[in-house]
């Protein structure tokens, strides 16, 4: 990153701090199967007042292979209101092997097609990073938090001086350990939720209002 882009990023961060933007474009990021789309659907259901979803969810990784966007969601929490444009991005990965999908029962042709689309999805997720005001990084609380995807997304948000909120998802599962995530990334706010069941979701909305409002 050169001097001009660094100066531009710093200037943008200062302007945002001074004027406290009340509208923000935030991306849902994380590894495949962390529950990004389940959370996006939950936010949509809670605040849009309309039926519909960001996308389908599946136990097969890379179900979301195109970024989905909803604009103008009004979230009210902590006595403040924030208008969000939310981008649900495909799962970030450093490797995609079609054989992984065949293990879930997909045919070879379906698996190869899914793998191709998944690689395109990762690229699209990376492109979106340049066009956001902040990120909700969704992690699976039952998994090791030190994945390279998590490290890379956090590193990029810190380098761009953009706000980041870590969502420790799947707290409803017996082996969930949100405390591991908090210990791994102590410099960032972490909210433990179950996007599937809606547990502690109000705390997440309060944190969103505080972090991005």
């Amino acid at each position, binding site marked *: 990153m050169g001097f001009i882009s660094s100066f531009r990023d710093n200037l943008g961060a200062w302007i945002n701090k001074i004027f406290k933007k009340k509208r923000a474009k935030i991306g849902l990021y994380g590894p495949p199967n962390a529950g990004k789309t389940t959370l996006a659907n939950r936010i949509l259901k809670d605040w849009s007042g309309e039926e519909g979803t960001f996308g389908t969810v599946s136990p097969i990784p890379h179900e979301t292979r195109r970024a989905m966007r909803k604009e103008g969601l009004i979230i009210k929490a902590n006595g403040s209101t924030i208008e969000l444009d939310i981008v649900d991005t495909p799962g970030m990965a450093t490797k*995609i092997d079609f054989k992984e999908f065949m293990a879930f029962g997909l045919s070879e042709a379906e698996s190869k097609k899914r793998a191709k689309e998944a690689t395109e999805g*990762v690229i699209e997720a990376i492109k979106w990073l340049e066009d956001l005001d902040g990120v909700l990084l969704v992690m699976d609380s039952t998994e090791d938090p030190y994945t390279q995807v998590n490290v890379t997304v956090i590193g990029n948000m810190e380098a761009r001086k953009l706000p980041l909120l870590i969502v420790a998802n799947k707290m409803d599962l017996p082996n969930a350990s949100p405390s591991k995530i908090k210990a791994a990334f102590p410099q960032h706010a972490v909210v433990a939720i179950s996007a599937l069941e809606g547990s502690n979701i109000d705390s997440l909305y309060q944190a969103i209002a505080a972090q991005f409002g």
Partner: protein
Amino acid sequence: MILMREVHMDLISEEKMENMTSMEKIRLILDKVKKGKIVVLESGLTPDEEVRLIEMTMTEIRVDEFSGIEIESYPSKKTGSFLDKIFGKAFKGRMTVIGPANQIHTIEKDKYQISTKVSVGD
């Protein structure tokens, strides 16, 4: 009789990398990894270079040829130098290991240690 198989590792110094552009670094890494080599970078990549490496990897994935990379690094460190911040080098990469996804597998990783297993002959 024990059959010995070889793993080719390239340990690349900070001095070599600091004179290269981001694209040169990414190309160097991917060319080596696609040949089955394990690359260890003394000083790692910046967060932006890491994400560009992932992006470039995605464009080069081919069925039955190359399924991607395994990359493990420690979180970037903030540098204290004012000049580094002015010139956009506020974050310094740290030791990083990168290899073909079908050969290198992370066993365990925490703040202080990365344990990986390298398989040969796949």
